């Protein structure tokens, strides 16, 4: 009988199902959903943010707390009992959905080794929420300050740093390196970066034609010019006049935005390029420049409305300045963090969601090359993978999870596909029609 022709009996409400004898007697599928929280998006970071906002904006602080995973499920009555905090960022929650014939266990983890373990677990649905690191891959760690955890990690084969699943060469803003202060390897001028399936340029639309070779000194100078230009922008009469009206405004880039530019020293780039040649200052590396404009964001604390000041030249045109990018080695196979890369992982999990920024563009194609995904496709097995199409925020994981648990038809066994379809449609609707009217979508790509 065709999938759609089967109409399982519907029950009205599945919450508090442990009190329902029918639920207890039924043979339910046990489903494990693992939320892997990357560097800077963990519950403790949300909690810290909420504490900071407690006095200034108590409503927003409460919202942040209620929106944490798995706490958001309790708010929607989608837990059998209150979520458990096991310490070290490890949370669990359980929920039985009688209509779906599924007993859910939700685990929140923050360690890279656990992330890998669950990627190899055929029963798990793994959802990564965190930075995409410009396409290099999921990134883990506890310390959100500058340090190695933003790249290789202090314990690269254990619990922190990148889990690489990126293109061989990825264009990253110089600002990212000098702001987060991590050691990295740049693509030397001799490297063949333009080969097929090798290169990812950020942001989207950066042209291959703009690729050039630069000495580190040239990149540092370009970065200095950018920061000086920003400072000049801050001194402009029009900005000062605007700032007087909006005292709480803060600087933002139009993209590539790392807010603490003032702490970043362009000369630090020399320190952080591992494969620089101190004896040969004219050694060149691949890089490019992309023009950006400066925008100042202002949020009215009373009304919550957001306004922008766009910096303009004296002729009234939008002011722009080139932002330097450098190509970094970022391969997914046989990397400096092996076995913590996608090449050394037998991806067996039932569902994998990479909910970092623009992961469809940055990681989907790479996952296509991995032997395990090729196997998925050949076998046409029951595995699924989902990515995002634009800058991603923490809310998509919440929407995803709530919609999956809320689904009120059978979703065990062969019915999972139907449940996932519902989840993706509802999540996208929520993102598009929610209070922030997000432009990006979660999309299925494998």
């Amino acid at each position, binding site marked *: 009988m065709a999938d759609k022709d089967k109409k399982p009996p519907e029950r009205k409400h599945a919450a508090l199902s442990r009190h329902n004898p029918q639920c207890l007697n039924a043979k339910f599928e046990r489903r494990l959903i693992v939320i892997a929280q990357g560097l800077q998006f963990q519950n403790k970071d949300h909690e810290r943010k909420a504490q900071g906002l407690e006095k200034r904006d108590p409503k927003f602080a409460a919202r942040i707390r209620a929106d944490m995973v798995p706490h958001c499920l309790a708010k929607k009555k989608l837990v059998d009992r209150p979520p458990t905090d096991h310490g070290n960022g490890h949370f669990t929650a359980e929920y039985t959905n009688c209509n779906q014939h599924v007993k859910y266990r939700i685990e929140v983890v923050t360690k890279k080794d656990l992330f890998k373990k669950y990627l190899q677990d055929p029963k798990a649905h793994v959802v990564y929420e965190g930075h995409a690191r410009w396409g290099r891959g999921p990134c883990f760690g506890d310390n959100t300050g500058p340090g190695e955890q933003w790249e290789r990690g202090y314990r690269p084969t254990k619990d922190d740093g990148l889990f690489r699943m990126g293109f061989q060469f990825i264009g990253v803003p110089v600002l990212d390196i000098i702001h987060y202060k991590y050691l990295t390897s740049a693509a030397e001028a001799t490297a063949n970066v333009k080969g097929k399936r090798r290169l990812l340029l950020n942001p*989207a639309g950066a042209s291959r034609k703009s690729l050039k070779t630069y000495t580190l000194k040239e990149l540092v100078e370009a970065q200095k010019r950018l920061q000086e230009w920003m400072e000049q922008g801050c001194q402009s009469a029009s900005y000062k006049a605007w700032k007087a009206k909006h005292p709480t405004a803060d600087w933002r*880039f139009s993209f590539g*935005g790392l807010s603490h530019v003032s702490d970043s020293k362009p000369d630090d780039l020399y320190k952080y390029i591992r494969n620089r040649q101190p004896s040969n200052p004219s050694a060149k590396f691949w890089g490019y420049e992309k023009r950006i404009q400066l925008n100042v964001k202002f949020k009215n604390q009373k009304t919550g409305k957001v306004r*922008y000041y766009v910096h303009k030249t004296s002729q009234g045109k939008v002011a722009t300045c080139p932002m330097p990018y450098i190509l970094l080695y970022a391969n997914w196979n046989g990397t400096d963090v092996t076995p913590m890369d996608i090449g050394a992982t037998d991806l067996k999990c039932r569902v994998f969601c990479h909910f970092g920024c623009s992961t469809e*563009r940055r990681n989907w194609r790479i996952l296509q090359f991995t032997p395990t995904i090729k196997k998925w496709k050949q076998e046409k097995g029951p595995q699924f993978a989902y990515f995002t199409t634009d800058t991603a925020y923490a*809310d998509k994981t919440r929407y995803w999870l709530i919609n999956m648990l*809320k689904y009120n038809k059978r979703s065990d066994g062969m019915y999972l596909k139907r449940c996932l379809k519902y989840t993706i449609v509802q999540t996208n609707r929520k993102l598009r029609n929610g209070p922030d009217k997000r432009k990006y979508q979660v999309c299925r790509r494998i």
Partner: protein
Amino acid sequence: MERNTVIEKLRTLDPDDVVELDSCAEQVVTDSRAAARSAVTLWAGSDEALKEKARYLLVNVEDIAIVPLLEAPNHPEADERAWLIRTVADAVADLRRKAASKLKAILDDETIVPGADDEDSTEEPAPLHRVCDEAYLAMRQLLHLDETEREFNANASAFSALTFEERDTHIQSARQSRAWTNLIDDEEWDEEEE
């Protein structure tokens, strides 16, 4: 569902109650297409006089007839099948012209669309979008039927990464494209006729 009932439902429903909102939406859709569906049933019948009146009605209800006609079973007579697809295509084209007309009006709107509340929590803040940028992307969706969803996403991201000035150049050239001017010219011509 009556107009007042819809308003009342929207006033009382919890915004998070997706199940109720979905059922409300489903009801509105069913009700709004009910009359056209009845007309389609008459059109599919054997009474020639009724058939003719049903055809007339279905042509004149414009976009409301699209889905009921598409869901109608295949008509045994070839001329009716041809009429059905012509009617649907005309209604869709008409709808495109209406959308284009709306787009044309907002392609000059340079107001910045406010960003998200929690922008601080992203590594790379979402690029600023003006209303006209969104209109341009909608225009692409309308005109570039050869673009796959993935290509559209890639092009949209590339466009969003441009500065306002660079985006304006794209918008300007799109406005001068033949596909767009044809669509708009049709619309203007229709207006003149009226």
